[in-house]
């Protein structure tokens, strides 16, 4: 129930904030702040409650109907005729991301306090809707519901950029919307493909994630279906060929918008890869992994180089996201626990550190009304507090030990090295490059000779609270990473186990299923139910074969495995042929 309330409180808050703007321009801010704070505290107390008990046992495998993973679950019928349910659930991974969302949510309300003067009510309406949508994305376990939230978070973000953005905002908002919307549609097609594939194979038409897991499909079908998901997620991430929308959207958005985009929305892509792509298409994911890791490496280097070349402060920070998200892609497709845990850390730390950098850019822009770093320089003397805060997060961004990002990047690289040493070696160059751009921020903006004489105030109390809490969190993540890693461990392990479990059984299952594309068994008569029954029988047969085979394998010595394999294989081939003739 708590997940439901998290979303409802935000939505109710958004409408209240909007309505209250008719009477007062201050009320919307307070209503938004209170709503997000209540949510944050509720989620935090939930985490504490969970932490005081034991986390779910590690070593789970994601299989249909396994409920042991979830801390909390909520399942209501929504559109029964399509097997669509309002199914929210949270495991360690989603809990961490929900916490991040609400933490950043509180901060983004605070940083917009004075920046937004125009149509305050509608601004906070959109802000809270985005947060609600993102929480929905992180907790939806029904694929239809997931897509629903995926789209819901888009529109308010579009308004946020399009109405409160800076000069080139219309262009940026269009680009953002069309990129994400069209890639989302591809994912939707894949979801439908999966839905019907599963329905036709088992007779159960459902969008439920836990039931769709383990759907058997031919490798080329799996590849196409996975492509839809992957495109949607790596556009959002973004990985290199699809990163085009990001610098524009980040640069033109108001500060809160940039913070939410960088800290939260990019994470939905990474989350999707871990939650959906790997468990739903383990075999296809393994085939795709080398290519994805190369894309990740390219992103790391390309993002860093472009970040270094920017003269617009905000654009620079935007490109660092491309660099950091490269690590995420690299880690996800390394397909081992260490790398994936690193990805979880990277998601959190990038959220904090890049969010903080965007807040500094926003605060600076609010004072000197330019983002051109050529005009800045030597600002430390005038704004020492801002300078030192920027220093902390520039160092975090380059991966200084003691701050969270170090742990994240280290884990990702160490894990990825086991999967592909060359790609990882190349990615490591990115670390050097990220040092360069991070130090360039400090050198150009805060150190060196002042190029203009600005008169500006240092961070005020509100801003110091925001930056201070971010600093505490990034230090905490850097010094006690186990607090977080322990939470996500069970869910990451279950994903890794699912991928590995399929790799042992998949080789044969796939060869069997290849002979069973959907049409070839069709006969002249169009009686669907008969066909379905036939298919079900086939399916059951194959599953039984796989099961017996696995049992046999564990019983036999490894040496003796080869002959059995071939024998079984021939047997099973006979079975299938017989099945077709039926």
């Amino acid at each position, binding site marked *: 129930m708590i997940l439901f309330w998290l979303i409802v409180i935000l939505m109710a808050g958004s409408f209240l904030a909007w309505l209250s703007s008719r009477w007062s321009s201050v009320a919307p801010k307070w209503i938004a702040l209170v709503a997000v704070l209540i949510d944050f505290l509720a989620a935090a107390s939930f985490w504490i409650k969970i932490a005081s008990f034991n986390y779910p046992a590690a070593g789970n495998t994601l299989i249909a109907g396994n409920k042991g993973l979830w801390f909390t679950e909520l399942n209501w019928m929504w559109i029964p005729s399509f097997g669509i349910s309002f199914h929210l659930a949270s495991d360690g991974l989603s809990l961490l991301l929900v916490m991040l969302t609400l933490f950043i949510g509180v901060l983004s309300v605070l940083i917009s306090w004075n920046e937004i003067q125009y*149509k305050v009510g509608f601004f906070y309406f959109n802000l809270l809707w985005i947060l609600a949508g993102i929480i929905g994305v992180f907790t939806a376990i029904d694929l239809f519901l997931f897509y629903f939230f995926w789209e819901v978070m888009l529109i308010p973000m579009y308004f946020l950029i399009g109405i409160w953005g800076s000069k080139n905002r219309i262009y940026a908002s*269009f680009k953002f919307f069309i990129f994400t919307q*069209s890639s989302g549609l591809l994912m939707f097609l894949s979801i439908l493909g999966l839905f019907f594939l599963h329905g036709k194979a088992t007779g159960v038409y459902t969008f439920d994630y836990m039931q769709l897991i383990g759907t058997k499909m031919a490798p080329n079908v799996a590849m196409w279906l996975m492509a839809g998901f992957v495109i949607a997620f790596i556009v959002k991430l973004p990985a290199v060929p699809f990163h085009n929308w990001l610098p524009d959207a980040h640069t033109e958005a108001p500060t809160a918008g940039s913070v939410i985009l960088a800290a939260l929305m990019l994470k939905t892509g990474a989350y999707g890869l871990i939650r959906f792509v790997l468990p739903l298409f383990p075999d296809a994911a393994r085939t795709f992994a080398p290519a994805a890791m190369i894309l990740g490496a390219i992103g790391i280097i390309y993002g860093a180089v472009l970040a270094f070349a920017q003269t617009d402060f905000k654009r620079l920070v935007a490109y660092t996201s491309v660099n950091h998200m490269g690590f995420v892609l690299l880690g996800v497709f390394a397909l081992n626990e260490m790398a994936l845990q690193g990805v979880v850390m990277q998601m959190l730390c990038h959220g904090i550190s890049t969010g903080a950098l965007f807040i500094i850019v926003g605060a600076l822009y609010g004072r000197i009304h330019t983002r051109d770093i050529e005009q800045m320089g030597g600002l430390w003397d005038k704004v020492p507090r801002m300078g030192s805060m920027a220093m902390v997060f520039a160092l975090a961004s380059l991966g200084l030990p003691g701050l969270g990002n170090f742990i994240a990047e280290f884990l990702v690289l160490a894990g990825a090295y086991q999967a592909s040493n060359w790609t990882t070696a190349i990615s490591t160059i990115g670390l050097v490059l990220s040092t360069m751009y991070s130090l360039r921020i400090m050198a150009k903006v805060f150190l060196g000779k002042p190029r203009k004489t600005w008169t500006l105030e240092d961070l005020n109390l509100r801003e110091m609270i925001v930056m201070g809490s971010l600093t505490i969190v990034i230090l905490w993540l850097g010094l006690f990473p186990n607090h977080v890693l322990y939470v996500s461990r069970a869910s990451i392990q279950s994903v890794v186990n699912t991928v590995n479990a399929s790799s042992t059984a998949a080789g044969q299952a796939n060869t069997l299923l290849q002979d069973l594309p959907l049409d070839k068994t069709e006969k002249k008569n169009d009686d669907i139910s008969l066909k379905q029954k036939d298919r079900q029988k086939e399916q059951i047969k194959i599953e039984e074969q796989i099961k017996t085979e696995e049992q046999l394998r564990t019983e036999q010595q490894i040496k003796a495995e080869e002959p059995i394999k071939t024998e079984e294989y021939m047997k099973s081939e006979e079975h299938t042929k017989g099945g077709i003739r039926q």
Partner: protein
Amino acid sequence: MTTEGLFSLLPLFLLSGFAVILMLLIAIYRDHNLTFWFTLAGFTASFASLFFIQAVLPRQIVPILIIDNYALLYWGMIILASSAVAVLSYNYLKEHEEQKEEYYILLMTATLGACTMSSASHFISFFLGLEILSVSLYTMISYLRDRLESVEAGLKYLVLAAASSAFLLFGMALVYASTGTMEFARISESLSANGVNALTLSGFAMMVIAVGFKLALAPFHMWTPDVYQGAPAPVTAFVATVSKAGMFGLWLRFFVMINGYRYGSLLILFTVISIASMFTGNFLALMQNNVKRILAYSSIAHLGYLFVAFLAGGKLAIEATTFYLVAYIITSLGTFGIVTVLSGKMRDAEDIEDYRGLYWRRPLVATVFTAMLMSLAGIPLTAGFIGKFYLVSAAVNSWLWLPVIILVINSAISVYYYLRIIVVMYRRIDEVTPAVETTTGTLATVGPVMQPSISLGGGLVLAVLTLALIWVGVFPGNIIQFIKDMVSSLSSAAMPMHTAQKIMLFR
């Protein structure tokens, strides 16, 4: 014909009866208010009678009409949409025309025509319904006689509709020549017994021209933008919704009854038409600056989407297309309703500049318009999203990937022009220039062209439509179930697509 048979025709009797009453009423006492209320009473009575006749259904009336739950559903949709148009028209006409009252008679007869079509089971009733609808529409489209575009649109519609009727008649004649009957059911029997020959197929192809014309499918869409732009805004709403619902209801029934899914050539024809409509509609909409024209092209694209699911065949296709039609009607009525309530005395609020900064001046209207456009774009929380989901799932179920992928590409294109309107509405007021050059060439300030305030009736209709839009978008379960039950009379007759045809269709 039994008394029960007569009784089941009650909704149609009421519609035609009220048309006559209105005529007499105008002859005796000409009053806009009175006529309007009588019109509404007529629609209400006719709609209410739907509930009473349900007990005696399904029923075949002689050979020409079939009244079953499917027909009832379409009647309900048509009558409700027509009443919405009537309410929207009331304020619009109040400002515009000297002779307002006859408009309502035409509205009544046009509705009657559409209802007849959706329950036709014979070429005679098909043609009769079509002509009742078309002839009423000629006049309705050119109702504002002092507006040149309106008259031009009417004339254009007249010429093209007449030509398409000629094609339809010729097509019917060819089918009759080869099958020897005009009843849908018996045509089906004859086709099953004797197979299909070139004569029948060319007959069907000619009928498709007329159907395509009425539904504004490419390449028979040429009239659409001009007529949509020229016609008075509420009439545009009528053309976009009621006339298409009537025609689609009929064509779906006809196609299912003759089991047209057997004929690969027909399916390929519809695939081509559907793809052409999607691309034509969306690409041309990208280039428009006139909101009415944008919506016209968008409606062409939407009918293209509809036919993607139509191609899928089987039970799911009937449900999906009907559901989509419901969503489409709600949305189209909403969008044209907005244009109507904003339109001033001089001209309709059709220039995209008229909408500049609308959100800051009329937050509610702009929010409603945004919701409607989002629904057209197929974004969650709206009926359009569920509708598109239904369409795509029907098509994916039949593994029709080519049309589906084209649908997705087109959805992405379409987002651009819907967003354009939304962007204009949300432009910050400090950017809004007071005087805007309009397409008509007059330098007009934004204010006076538009209605100073929203009429009560118009506001009410929009409120109801918005609620329906969100309700269907968020809790579609009941409506899906309702539609399933209602169309079951037809979908039980639907056969799954033939395997050979599926392969032909890029399965």
